[in-house]
């Protein structure tokens, strides 16, 4: 079984996000890039499937982006136990899910993966489309929001999360592209041995450049407040006093 896991480098939530001078992108120099949350769950799911499978299996961690932002993502994937990496180098800031997915599909086609796992959504772009787009482009069966998986021969059974507490089991024949919901498992930490071994693993670097975009950002901006917000700052003591006043006198809840 050959499993690809799409893992994206995204700005950590602690990073300060500032619009750059172009007005269309962020100042990347002040940003710390980390693995997208649901992608870490996708990688763990792939590793667990490989570990419980009989016969030869391979997990390949795949990322697309600029060299500067993504290097940690591949290293982390290999250190956790992926067998090799594919780095699709793309220095553009294309945000068009169709154009990005085309790059994945073109570069992964010849690999003939049985399964492609992705996160349900990237926390920076939030399109929630890439896994399904790539699946359609490579003529695979697709499912999203997987919260449990069971491989059975050349099929995979997936428990999908639906809205408001509903679920559904779907059985998909290989090849299949599945997006993984967070919380499906408990992602591991890389071991010291894994970190040392990662350096010797194969990494394929592929050059790419996106074709024409069908959608693009006109600008980026800081959202405006929907409400009149009272800001409370200061040392801990004055903050506590202020909150007490709000709870007691303004809201009368204590």
């Amino acid at each position, binding site marked *: 079984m050959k499993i690809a896991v799409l893992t994206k480098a995204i*700005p950590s*939530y602690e990073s*300060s*996000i500032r619009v750059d001078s172009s007005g269309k992108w962020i100042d990347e120099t002040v940003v710390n890039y980390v693995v997208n949350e649901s992608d870490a769950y996708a990688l763990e799911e792939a590793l667990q499937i490989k570990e419980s499978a009989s016969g030869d299996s391979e997990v390949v961690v795949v990322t697309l982006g600029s060299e500067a932002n993504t290097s940690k993502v591949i290293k982390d994937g290999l250190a956790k136990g992926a067998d090799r990496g594919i780095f699709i180098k793309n220095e553009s800031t294309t945000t*068009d*899910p*169709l154009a990005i997915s085309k790059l994945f599909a073109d570069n992964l086609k010849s690999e003939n993966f049985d399964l492609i796992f992705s996160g349900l959504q990237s*926390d*920076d772009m*939030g*399109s*929630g*489309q890439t896994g*399904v*787009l790539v699946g*359609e*482009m490579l003529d695979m*069966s697709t*499912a*999203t*929001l997987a919260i449990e998986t069971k491989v059975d021969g050349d099929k995979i059974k997936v428990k999908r999360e639906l*809205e408001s*507490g*509903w*679920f*559904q089991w*779907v*059985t*998909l024949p290989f090849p299949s592209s599945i997006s993984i919901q*967070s*919380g499906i498992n408990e992602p591991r930490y890389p071991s010291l041995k894994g970190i040392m071994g990662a350096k010797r693993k194969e990494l394929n670097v592929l050059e790419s450049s996106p074709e*024409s975009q*069908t*959608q*693009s950002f*006109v*600008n*980026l901006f*800081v*959202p405006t*407040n*929907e*409400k009149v*917000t*009272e800001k*409370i*700052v*200061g040392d*801990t*003591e004055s*903050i*506590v*006093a202020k*909150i*007490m006043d709000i*709870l*007691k006198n303004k*809201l009368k*809840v*204590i």
Partner: protein
Amino acid sequence: MILVVLENQRGNIHPFSLEAVAAGQKFAQELNSELSILCLGEKVSELKTQAQNFKSNKLIIAQNSLIDMYSADGYSKVLSDVISNMSPKYVLMGHSYMVRDFVPRVSAKLGIPFVSDIISVNFNNGSPLFSKQVFNAKLATSIEVSSNQALLSFQSAAFSSDDIQEGGPDAEHVFDVELLGQDIRTQSEPEFQESASGVDLTAAELIVSVGRGVESEDNLPTMQSLADAMGAEVASSRPVVDMGWLPPYRQVGSSGQVVSPKLYFSLGVSGAIQHVVGMKGSKNILAINKDEDAPIFEIADYAVIGDLLEIVPKLTEEINNSK
């Protein structure tokens, strides 16, 4: 033409689809265009009955026994065929889990962009711009499409179903669905619900909600003590549940409960849209976050910028002393 796709949620129109109908009527008016509404599936009678109340030019029925149960293969094939046949300029839907599951396939099949999770539209004299949140909701963007057609999905409350104009369709049209058994590769089982939740957060007057900013499971008792001192229920964001720190029935948000207490006191929650849709109806929102740019502050009445691990124990002590 503008096309609105109605989603069948276990026999009823999905609430997000009602908002899409309101969006469709607005698009048709702003862009001086015709409006069609599509019912798709096998058991469409309920959808059709409800759609007969909405003002539109055409009600399209695409019915077939192979799409009695939803599948990404079946739905994406039929919607692609409808679009190829009728050439709508914009196809409008709610940003539901079902739409997330099959609409990207339509986008790839037809090479038409899918702008997902839109929060507002600027009609911009006929060349609309679509806003959505990006970078963990810290920024927003306006998106333009450079294609003749686009698929659009709207975040809940981007449009209001209260604005739907009644009146019914001018005409009805049955679309000839061409689908073969082999088109559907997946096998779906009936939808089910897990056992009922442990607490009904929707009934709580006061909620103390913890996010990943509590930093460790070991800090949860401290947060619980604050809730106890206030007589509040504890709720949480999704990552706190994913990490197993709290049970799933405490989760607030699009995949958890939707609450509207008198006070929602959030501790270390960033304010991602999927969390905010579950609590923005709260009468008062008090939020502690150490990041002054945290998106939760955009909807908070009181924004406390500080370290919750320092503030919460002292606050609990004060509340207990004041009793």
